[in-house]
Each structure stands twice: as structure tokens, then as C-alpha cells.
């Protein structure tokens, strides 16, 4: 009998899972359907390059339907309700989808509405249009005070704001206006990054480059008129240009379906990735509440385990592996330099050395992503 696999989401998680599963399971053994609502697939890591004119935005997007391998049923529809007890998902189109296996890869959404004043005052580089808007704002920037930071935790790709800041420093030097600009970096914790040893090198770099760090800064509100960003902890910083990563939550329909609380992030088993007592409902990527980075690389490692597990089960085998919390992160540390961090639940990341090779890896990551990783080849 053929199994029905239903995947929600057409971003990194959904696309990688669908392609990996299709490689592993013969077509007669399983139907694979993906529901998604993004006709264009944007490679978000290029958000640290686009604002500085380093990459052409059009190179960072591909039509989503071109990224699915043969034998995958990709449907443009938005999931509006999941009924895990009756194994059904309702689409916005009015269609109902049933499944034997459900894989949720709907990522997260930005909720600027959680911060009063955000819409009128802040810019960011966390999606395609916003990165272009920020590029234009930087183009017109002649000097002043730039404030950068994540408004709260969690947010995608924890190194991205400091990578952006390193690149900004260089961009302003190239334009000859670094001496006319103050760069301030705010961070919700009492250091510059979530992980202590990585924080050390970030803080050292900030010091070398004259970037001013404000720690324990969870953004509460923005006063657009007086151009001040205020923290929950009672500090205010004024700005001329504010680059603030909006708060993140999981998708509303996940909360409405009873799979998560108001945060929208799904609690799944940290090793098996299944939801609650259901051994046929899984979540991966940004949609989960796991204590791992919200990163495409996380989704990639999780899909490695999950696709194999489901393929084994469908063929009557048992799969003994589990997800070990693996995350890999190549992060820009300066002009033409990057380092790669690799860690798991048990093993903290080691920040070793800067290398030009890692920068090349980062620079070409849209190409390797679209041609290899997202297609389930790697």
C-alpha cells in the first residue's frame, strides 16, 4: 500500500525534506505532497550582502516549483488548520488533505506589531524586499548614528546581525564615511552573542573597529518622533538609522490548531522530532521550539535524520539514528574572511580561525544551496 506524505511549507525545510524523501522512496511506495504559499524561494542568507550592493537580489531567488524533483506534488495552497487526531489538513483553497505522515516546515513569521513604533521607524535585512529597502537607505546615508540589533531572542541565524555589522563597518570605510558614523550594537543577553566563546571574538572585533556594544537590551518600544529605541531593561539609545531585526513567532495557524502556545513554535522531541505522542507528525527547521539555532543548516541536518527514518519505516525497516542537535554555521568575520562553527547538543562550538576559504564558501552559498542542498543531493 502506498503511504501519503504531506509536507507543509515550501522553504528550506519543506523543499529539502520533499527532495530527500523522493530520492529515498520509490514512487509506488509513497505519494509526496507539499503545500506552500511562496511562489518564489528566496535565499535569506544573502540578506547580509544585498544591503551593501554586494549581490544582485535577483540572483538570490528561484521559482519554488523549479526546486522540486520529479515525482513531487507541489501545490500552491496555504495550510489553515491541522487536525492531528483525524490526520487532516485544511487548505485556504477549501481543499482538505489527508496524510499518513505529516511534516511541518512552515518556518516562522516576523511580528513587528509586537513592538510599538516599529513600522514607522525600523529597517531590516531579514527578507527580500526589506533588504532592498535597506540598501536604498544606506545608499542615501551620509553619516550619523546607526543602531543595529535583534529586538529579541529567538531570531533566525544568530550570527547574522554581527555579520551584517562587520560588513557595514567595511562598507562605510569604503565609502569614506566611517569617521562620520557611530555604530551601536544592541543585544538581548549580557554579551554580544548567544554562545560565550564566540562572543569573545565578536566583542574583540567590535572593540578593534570602534563598534559600541549595549548588552541586556531587549527592545520594548521605539519612539519614531524622537528617534529613540527603548529597552525593557530601561535603557534608551537614539539613532539616525535603525536596523532592527523584528521579533519572530511561529505561524498563527499552528497556534490556532492547538500545536503550540502563543509563540507559535512547536515542541517536538529533541532527538526524534515528533510532536507529542504522535509518531507520524514531525516538525523541523524554524518551526520548532528546539534549543538550536534557527538556521537552514539545522533544517538540513534534521532532514538527514527524518527522511531516512521515514523511508526506513515505509520499507518495513527500523532506523536507529536520531537528530543530535547538529548545526553548522559559516559566519563572516571581516572583509573577505569567515569562520565555520559546528556544534551539537553535547558539543559547544569551537571558534577556530578566520579563513578566506570559508568566506568563499559563504559567498557561493546561494549557488550550492540552489543546486545541491535544497535539492536533497547533499
Amino acid at each position, binding site marked *: 500500500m502506498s503511504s501519503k506524505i504531506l509536507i507543509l511549507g515550501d522553504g528550506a525545510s519543506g523543499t529539502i525534506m520533499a527532495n530527500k524523501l523522493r530520492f529515498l522512496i520509490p514512487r509506488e511506495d509513497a505519494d509526496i505532497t507539499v503545500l506552500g504559499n511562496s511562489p518564489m524561494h528566496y535565499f535569506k542568507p544573502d540578506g547580509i550582502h544585498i544591503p551593501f550592493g554586494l549581490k544582485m537580489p535577483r540572483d538570490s531567488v528561484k521559482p519554488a516549483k523549479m526546486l522540486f524533483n520529479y515525482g513531487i506534488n507541489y501545490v500552491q495552497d496555504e495550510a489553515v488548520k491541522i487536525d492531528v487526531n483525524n490526520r487532516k489538513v485544511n487548505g485556504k483553497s477549501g481543499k482538505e488533505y489527508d496524510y499518513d505522515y505529516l511534516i511541518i516546515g512552515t518556518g516562522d513569521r516576523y511580528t513587528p506589531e509586537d513592538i510599538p513604533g516599529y513600522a514607522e521607524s525600523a529597517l531590516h535585512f531579514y527578507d527580500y524586499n526589506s533588504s532592498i529597502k535597506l540598501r536604498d537607505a544606506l545608499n542615501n546615508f551620509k553619516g550619523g548614528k546607526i543602531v543595529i540589533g535583534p529586538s529579541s*531572542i529567538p531570531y533566525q541565524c544568530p550570527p547574522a546581525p554581527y555579520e551584517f555589522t562587520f560588513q557595514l563597518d567595511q562598507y562605510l570605510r569604503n565609502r569614506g564615511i566611517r569617521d562620520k558614523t557611530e555604530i551601536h550594537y544592541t543585544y*538581548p*543577553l*549580557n554579551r554580544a552573542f548567544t554562545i560565550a566563546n564566540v562572543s569573545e571574538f565578536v566583542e574583540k572585533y567590535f572593540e578593534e573597529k570602534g563598534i559600541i556594544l549595549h548588552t*541586556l537590551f*531587549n527592545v520594548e518600544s521605539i519612539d519614531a518622533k524622537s528617534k529613540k529605541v527603548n529597552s*525593557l*531593561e*530601561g535603557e534608551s539609545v537614539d539613532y539616525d538609522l535603525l536596523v532592527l531585526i523584528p521579533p519572530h513567532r511561529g505561524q498563527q495557524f499552528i497556534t490556532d490548531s492547538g500545536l503550540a502556545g502563543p509563540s507559535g513554535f512547536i515542541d517536538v522531541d529533541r532527538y526524534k522530532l515528533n510532536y507529542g505522542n504522535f509518531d507520524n507528525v514531525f516538525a523541523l527547521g524554524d518551526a520548532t521550539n528546539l*534549543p538550536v539555532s534557527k538556521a537552514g543548516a539545522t533544517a538540513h541536518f534534521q532532514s538527514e535524520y527524518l527522511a531516512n527514518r521515514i523511508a526506513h519505516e515505509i520499507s518495513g525497516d527500523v532506523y536507529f539514528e536520531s537528530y543530535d542537535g547538529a548545526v553548522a554555521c559559516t559566519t563572516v568575520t571581516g572583509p573577505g574572511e569567515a569562520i565555520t562553527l559546528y556544534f551539537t547538543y553535547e558539543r559547544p562550538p569551537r571558534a577556530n580561525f578566520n579563513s578566506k576559504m570559508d568566506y568563499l564558501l559563504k559567498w557561493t552559498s546561494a549557488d550550492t544551496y540552489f543546486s545541491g542542498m535544497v535539492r536533497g543531493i547533499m
Partner: protein
Amino acid sequence: MENEIKPNKVVDARGSFCPGPLMEMIKAYKEAKVGDVISVYSTDSGTKKDAPAWINKSGNELIGIFDRTGYYEIMMKKVK
């Protein structure tokens, strides 16, 4: 005695890694009323440093850090 204080809210963040426990505490703080006592259970050693730093900076009150069996408890009072 610490045991005489009963928290209004207990956040069980055991098994969660940094910055999970601190972020859970901040979430509970946002939802709490002035005067409420919040307890966070954590197994992550980093929280012992991070949580008091946050409590101090935000102008709230650290009631104490207590070693329990296999975890520890950080107790704070929301004063503003």
C-alpha cells in the same frame, strides 16, 4: 527561609540550553504583575550568571539562587 516564599509563577526550563532559561524568565516577567515572584528552574550553568545580570540591569530584585537536586532555582521579584 527561602522556602517560605511562594513564587507566583514557576518556569521549568530544565534541559533547555542558554539562552533558553533567561528568555523564559523574561517572558514570564513581561506577563507578571509588579510584586510577583518568579522562579526559574535551570540545568544550564550559564543561567547562574546571565539571569542575575538581567535582573540587576532591569532594576528588579534577585531573591536568591538555590541549589536543588540536579538543577538550581533562581528566584526574582518584579519590582517595576
